[in-house]
């Protein structure tokens, strides 16, 4: 049997990067087809392929790390760098939307009435549901930290409880935001106010959903004994992502909900 004389992971050939790329192509072109020709087939195909790719690629990573022992300390270090770089790229993604918001709101044009919020826009009261949403996400930051310490101390039941509580808080946030979206007196089509509000908070909400899914996978893995008190990087990555989502919300709340009202 051949052995490697190094601590790194030479990954076996895999079809998932290619299927992921094809999914990205089908979803983007599918979106254009939907907008211009009113058919959702291509986009639907792309979404299905994306879901299959994500499931199988991440399943393979769990197999390689948890069951086959390929995630040695240097490999784990690389995974840490990877997650940090990914989150950094997401920070820049949101920075763009904050740039757009400040560009339009710091110097409101005459077409808007020369003021911000524009004439005719009734902004949401920042001290009603948006404040509750802030409390919910901050609380979920506390519970995910409880979960991390529980994992590190080998407290299996507490880890499961705190992780489940974190996910419930995430779902509660999403539920409250959906309600706000429905009740809002303005829509995405209400000029640059509507555009900046719904695109920035909308992408944030998408990241909350993604983060909740990531944490839910971690909960399933914790229940199935994948994590040890020393080695649980999948959970740490999910927790980092979750804190990032929380911080983005704080910036959104201060800028768009509070200052922007």
């Amino acid at each position, binding site marked *: 049997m051949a052995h490697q004389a190094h601590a790194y992971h030479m990954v076996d050939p895999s079809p998932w990067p290619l299927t992921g790329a094809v999914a990205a192509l089908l979803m983007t072109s599918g979106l254009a087809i939907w907008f211009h020709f009113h058919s959702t087939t291509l986009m639907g195909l792309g979404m299905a392929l994306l879901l299959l790719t994500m499931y199988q690629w991440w399943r393979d990573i769990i197999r390689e790390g948890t069951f086959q022992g390929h995630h040695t300390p240097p490999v784990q270090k690389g995974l840490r760098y990877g997650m940090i770089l990914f989150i950094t790229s997401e920070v820049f993604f949101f920075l763009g939307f904050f740039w757009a918001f400040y560009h339009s709101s710091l110097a409101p044009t005459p077409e808007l009435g020369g003021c911000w919020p*524009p004439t005719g826009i009734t902004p949401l009261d920042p001290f009603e549901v948006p404040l*509750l949403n802030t*409390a919910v996400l901050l609380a979920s930051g506390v519970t995910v930290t409880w979960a991390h310490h529980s994992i590190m101390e080998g407290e299996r039941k507490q880890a499961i409880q705190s992780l489940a*509580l974190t996910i419930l808080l995430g779902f509660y946030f999403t539920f409250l935001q959906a309600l706000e979206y429905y009740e809002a007196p*303005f829509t995405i*089509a209400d000029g640059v106010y509507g555009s900046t509000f719904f695109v920035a908070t909308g992408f944030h909400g998408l990241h909350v959903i993604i983060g909740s899914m990531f944490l839910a996978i971690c909960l399933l893995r914790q229940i199935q004994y994948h994590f040890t008190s020393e080695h649980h990087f999948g959970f740490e990555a999910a927790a980092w992502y979750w804190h990032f989502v929380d911080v983005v919300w704080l910036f959104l709340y201060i800028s768009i909900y509070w200052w922007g009202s």
Partner: protein
Amino acid sequence: MSVSPAALVARRVFAAASHSSHEGGARTWKILTFVLALPGVGVCMANAYMKMQAHSHEQPEFVPFPHLRIRTKKFPWGDGNHSLFHNSHTNPLPDGFEGSHH
């Protein structure tokens, strides 16, 4: 901008939290969860509920501003004139609220 007493309390609670939280194991964070985080959420829930009850339920007067309710391109669903989270009670169409009031 009026701030209810409950919201003021919530803000003070969170200001205090940034000074009092410290590293120290699962037990510490469990205590923080049940003494600070979840009660904070509860206070904000009560505050939001009370403020919502104090709202007037009137539909605002409709003014057909040209800078709002943009329809440069139809939405790719339904009749193309309704946003994704359209609420006929709070969202007027470009020519006014749908149907009769309420």
